Structures are given as C-alpha cells and as structure tokens.
C-alpha cells in the first residue's frame, strides 16, 4: 500500500474536517469573492499551518483569481503548487518513493548515527521502533541506545521493542546519564559493525534549559568517537500540535541542529499543517510520517501526496 493510500485511509476515519476539497468549496461559475476566500482561509487555518502561511496562500489566490469566475482546475493548481513549493523548499532534498531510506543521510564510513528527540508524548520511542523496522527490512544492521533514562519504564518500553524486532540495545539503569548511554551506544555500534545507531532521548519541553543542554551534551559526547555524529537529528512532532510546533522546532534545532522531522499520529483528524510553517521558517523538512500504531506504519513523506491528503475527500 503506497503512502497515498495509507494517508487516505487514515483520513477516511475523519468525519468532519476537510472532507470537502477545493472542488467542493469552489464551484465553477461562482465569483471568487472575499467571503469565499475567507472560507478557504478558515480551512487552511484548521490544518494548523498558521495564520501567516494561510494568509500567504490566500493572498496568492486573491491575486491570481480574485474577482473572477472560478475555474476549479486553475484554482486547485494554484493552491497545490503554492503548498508544494512551501514544503519542498529550496535545498534540493528529494523523497524518492521507490527507496524509503532516501532522505536519511548516510555516514561516509562506519555506523550512521541517528539522534531522535522531541517533547513529551509525541511518540519518539514508537517512531524509533518503526524506523528500526524499516531499516532492518532493508537489510541493515541497527543498534538502539535507550537514552530515555528519566521517564518511568521508558527503557523497558524500548527494550520490549528491541526484543520484538530482534536488534541489540544498549541500556543502563534509570536516572543514569543519557550521554553515557549514547556514548556506549556509539562504541557498541562501531564494535559490532552496525550500519545504524538510533539514540532515543527523554521527552523534554523546549523551554527547559538544562534539559536542552543535556541534549547538546549527548551530541558532544558522541562526537568523541564519530566526529560528524549524529548524521541525522530527527525531531518527532505530534501532528496534533498547533503553533507551538514552531517553537519546538526552533529550540530543538538550536540544541541538536535538526536535519528533519518525523510527523507522528497522522492517522487521527489532525493534519499537522504546522510543518508548512516549520519548513518555511526553520528550513528543515519532514522526512517520515507516522500513520498508525503498527510497527510498519511509518511512511516516507511525500510533499505532493501530503498536499493531496490535506485536501482529500
């Protein structure tokens, strides 16, 4: 099942929002007036993309089509192009749908280190399990490091996953230093000749200075063994998150230099539109999306599919 179908299946569950797509809102022959545009803006805002981005798209629509009779195909094209432009950005990242690992940067030699961070309860550990599964299915050797030593039973949670997936895990007792766990993880990955090391971290709110410093430390310590680690710093973002997602992206990026997002929980009614604002302001793209609770419910992000799904029927 491709991304599109899966996303759509996720969206099937919804009953209220965005059932009607652009074609339903704009009918051929109508005049594209302010009230119509306002309705459209409301729809955009409901995806959580924020007032600024929604305003930009609406303004574009107003400039191109305002006051004229609606040509549905042209309107749809304008909206779609604008959104895809916003999401694709200019840094040339490509999501190759035939290769699900295409957005992950690969280390020149030795293990590729992936650091995963995010606020509490966004689904970091589950996303790691899904990512591990994806990597292993593609024939790679993965080592996990259980860096969430703070939350009760978080280490157990990841350990259970590692047993289910059958990959080695580095762990320490709870409340030990997460940087030490990460360090040992790197050591183990190098020793065993693993292809990937995925480091879990405890959930933290981006306003907690000392915890953000801790993240920096994890990064610093890993660099003692592999100077360019982590090759990927992924921020996990809950699709239900509103405008605070932007603040999360800013702060986490400051601490660990985020290279991409995993947008989780897209199987609900939330659209995760805030990634549009994040792409625009912070520059880093969505790499994967979580579309369910099963371990293979991790999909490669695809801007075109995402925009279509955003307005899917």
């Amino acid at each position, binding site marked *: 099942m491709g991304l599109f179908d899966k996303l759509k299946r996720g969206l099937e569950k919804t009953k209220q929002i965005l059932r009607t797509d652009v074609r339903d809102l704009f009918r051929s022959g109508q005049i594209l007036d302010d009230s119509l545009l306002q309705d459209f803006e409301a729809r955009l805002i409901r995806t959580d993309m924020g007032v600024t981005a929604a305003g930009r798209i609406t303004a574009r629509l107003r400039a191109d089509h305002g006051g004229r009779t609606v040509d549905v195909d042209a309107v749809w094209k304008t909206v779609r192009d604008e959104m895809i432009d916003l999401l694709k950005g200019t840094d040339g990242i490509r999501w190759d749908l035939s290769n699900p690992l295409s957005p992950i940067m690969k280390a020149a030699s030795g293990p590729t280190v992936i650091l995963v961070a995010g606020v509490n309860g966004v689904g970091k550990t589950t996303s790691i399990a899904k990512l591990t599964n994806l990597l292993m299915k593609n024939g790679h050797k993965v080592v996990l490091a259980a860096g969430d030593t703070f939350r009760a039973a978080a280490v157990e949670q990841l350990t259970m996953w590692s047993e289910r997936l059958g990959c080695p895990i580095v762990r320490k007792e709870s409340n030990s230093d997460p940087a030490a766990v990460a360090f040992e993880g790197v050591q183990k990955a190098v020793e065993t000749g693993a292809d990937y090391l995925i480091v879990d971290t405890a959930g933290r709110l981006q306003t907690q200075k000392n915890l953000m410093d801790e993240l920096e430390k994890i990064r610093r310590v890993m660099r003692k063994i592999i100077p360019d680690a982590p090759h990927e710093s992924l921020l996990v973002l809950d699709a239900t*998150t509103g405008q605070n997602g932007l603040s999360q992206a800013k702060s986490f990026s400051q601490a660990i230099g985020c290279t991409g997002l995993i947008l989780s929980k897209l199987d*609900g009614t939330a659209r995760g539109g805030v990634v549009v604002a994040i792409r625009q302001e912070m520059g880093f793209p969505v790499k994967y999306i979580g579309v369910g609770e099963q371990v293979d419910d991790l999909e490669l992000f695809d801007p075109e599919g995402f925009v279509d799904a955003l307005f899917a029927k």
Partner: protein
Amino acid sequence: MFENITQSLGKAFSAFRGTGKITESNIRDGMQQVRTALLEADVAYDVVQDFVKRATEEAIGEKVLKSLRPEEQIVGIVHQQLIDLMGPVDHSLAIKRDGISIIMMCGLQGSGKTTTCGKLARRLKEAGHSPFLVAADLQRPAAIEQLKVIGGQVGCPVYAEDPKTSNPVQVCKNGVKEAKRVGAKVVILDTAGRLHVDAALMKELQQIDSSVAPDQALLVCDAMTGQDAVNSAKAFNDALELDGVILTKLDGDTRGGAALSVKAVTGVPIKFIGVGEQLDRLEEFHPDRMAGRILGMGDIVSLFEKAQKEFDEEDMLRQQEKMQQGKFTLEDFRKQMRQIKKLGSMREIMKMIPGMGAIVDQMGDLNPEDDMRRIEGIINSMTPKERQNPDVIDRGRRNRIACGSGVQPADVNKLLKDFSAMGKMMQGMSSMGLRDRMRAVKGMADGGFMNPGAELMEKKMRSTRGPLNQDEAREKKKKQKKEAQKAKKRNRKK
C-alpha cells in the same frame, strides 16, 4: 509571534489617534488583531470567529469610543470575555464521603494520562484519601511498569493484570473489586491512549464506562494541541459525557488556546493543569491566568505563587533587612541568584511580568542565564571572607579569583563594581514605598539591567529633595569651599 496583544492593538489604533476619533470600523480593525492573536494561540477557528463577533459587539460602545486608551479598554473586554468563557471553575473530584469513588482517565496517545494519574493520586493522598491505581493500558509496551513505578513513588497500590490474558474492561472491573477489598477510597483507572476516530477503541471505553460506572470521567488533553483539540474533545465527550478536563504540559511556552476550544465546544470545566514532569506539578485551573496567557499578557499572580513556594520567607526577610542596612554581601547575592534560578529560566520569569514580555523579545539571542552562571562562578571562586567583605580583594586576590573561575580579571572587577552599584540602588530602593520600588525596577530594566552587555554603572542620584546623605554633601561642599579659598590665597601670594 505576538508577545503582547496590547502593544499590537496600540499600534493598530495609533494610526487613527492623530485624527482624534476612534470609529466603529477602527474597532473592527483592532478586533482583527485579537483574532490573529487567538489563532496564533491555537484557539479553534470557529471558536475564534464566534468569540470575536461577540467581543466586537460589546466593544462597540460609548465607553471604548470615548476612551483615551481604547486598546486597553478592548483588551480588558476581551480578557473578561475569555475568563467568562473558560469559567466557572470547579476543582472538585466528587469524592464520596463514604463508599468508593471511581475516576476514569482517558485521552489521546501521549497526552500524559499515566503521569497525570500519578499526580492525581498524590494530590488525593495529600488530601487524606487513599487512592488506588488500576493499569488498564494494555496497549503500549511497558505502560503497566510505568504506572507501577509511579505508584511506588506516590506510595499507593497499583492493580495490574497480564496483558496477554486479560482485556481492559476486565482489568477495570477486577481492579475496582480489589480496591474495595483492600479498603481504598478512590480508584483511578489509567486507560490506554486512543484516537477519537478509532471506533473499536472508543467502544471499549464506553464498555468500561458502563461496567464500572465511574463517578468522574476526565479527559487529559495536551495544551499544545492545535486546531484538532475540538475534534478529539468533542468525540470523547460524545462517547463518555466528560466531567472535567485536565490540561497538561503547560510548563512549556505554549499559549494554550486549546483550553478555550475545549471548554467552548464541550462545556466541560477544566479542573487541573499539569505544569511539570514531577508528580507534585499539578495545579488548579484558573481562567483569569489562562486568559492572560492566551493573550500573552503575563501572569504575575502565578509568578508570585511560584516564588512563594520556592523561597524561604524568613530568609527573604533577613535578606531584606540586610539590604536596608547596606549589609548585603556577595554571599546573599549568590543565594538570591540561586533562588531565582529555581523559578525557571529568566525568559520565562520575565514573560510572566506584565510589560516585560517586550523586553524578552528585544533580548533576542542574549541569554541572561549564561551571564548568571558566570557571575556565580566568580563568586564561587572567592573565599568566604572575600564574599563577606569584597573590599579586601586586591590585585593578587583578583587574579586568583579570575583564574579560579576562568574569566579575565577585568570581569571580576566589573562584577565588584556592579555589585556595589546594585547594593546602593537596593539600599535606596528598600526605603521606598511599593509604588516607587516598582518604578525603580522598571527603570533598572530600561537601563539595561537584563542586558548583560550593558554596564550597570553607579548612577548619580538626583532628586528634588537633594542628595540622600545631605550631611555628608554639606561637609563636602564646605571642604571644597575652603580648598578653593586656600587656592585663591596661594595664587595671590605668587
């Protein structure tokens, strides 16, 4: 982002102030700012539309039109309306005097149910009840272990079954039975996180509801939720008839518009808010503070309460006295700095003070914490004697301190200079009334107190009543006069 809606409203109106008249259409324009602010705070779109419409109607009245500061009037109206919408409060958990009370927690994945269960249990225990936790989350790996650990921390029993052979409905039933057997008073059911669109799991929730008949069904909702908050809250309310909402993760910098959305669509009161990962971080919900937060207006009451909790009152009084007598030492200074640190980051603190939000923006990437840490390092490198009496610090000592704390000797010097300037300022301040003191603090802020780059130099104190130490000044003047006369004589002799 909006930091202060009053400011942006002020901007919107200042354009018209020149013409001398605020009209109805100006107010509508101003209301657009309110609308944007609410949307930026993640209040649901429809709720915002309704709200703005109602607030506009109220604002278009004589009072605002004739007011000198219409932005303040409007913000006042908006603020009050927000409070009305989010109130009235109801912090009760409907604990029965005799018999067993059952509280069921539900919510989306990752909203913080399990942690909140622990917080509630702790709160109930402190209030003299005997809570009992039931681990009905059989979905997430290690969720049962998490609840057990939390139960251990609170010191309350946890009931769990093997997830392979049981189901959530059965666990809840058996859990309540077990609670009755051990004589617990309040049972808290920790259900698995679920999507509101997952029909099967929502049905399971209803089954639990009908089989154990909880007295309270509480929805745990992440305060950072965006527009989707209305959908999930509505679905849970339709399925369960919620009795209350607990808003979590409010210790971050989210504006928490979800609070308004959830209350507006479900009508269910928000009972508590989670403000930290520790189990004691559960507070009662106050609509007035939340309203201020949604509008980005600062929250001095919460700051005050927080300070009261963290600071030792006697210690504060002692320090105050010391300040008045001008005996405030570096030791005290360090102590105070540590206390302030406990309150949270400087940025966070300042955002809570009305009017200071704008300064936070001006600071940009400047980080007062780093500066505070360096200062603490310098003080740490002094001997107790030096801290008591900084005057003994000579060149040698200064170099030693600089070496010890990894700074330049000039930095040590600057700290000492700033400190003596501050001491004088404080001495002056402590003799002022509250009003003057507030003004002085504001003056300090304007003068770059929060800007680590700016030097906090000793400013000459001028006042209409003349210098503070009049006698000294008089002596000084006399001396100067005498000297001048002597000089004159000398000159004449030549």
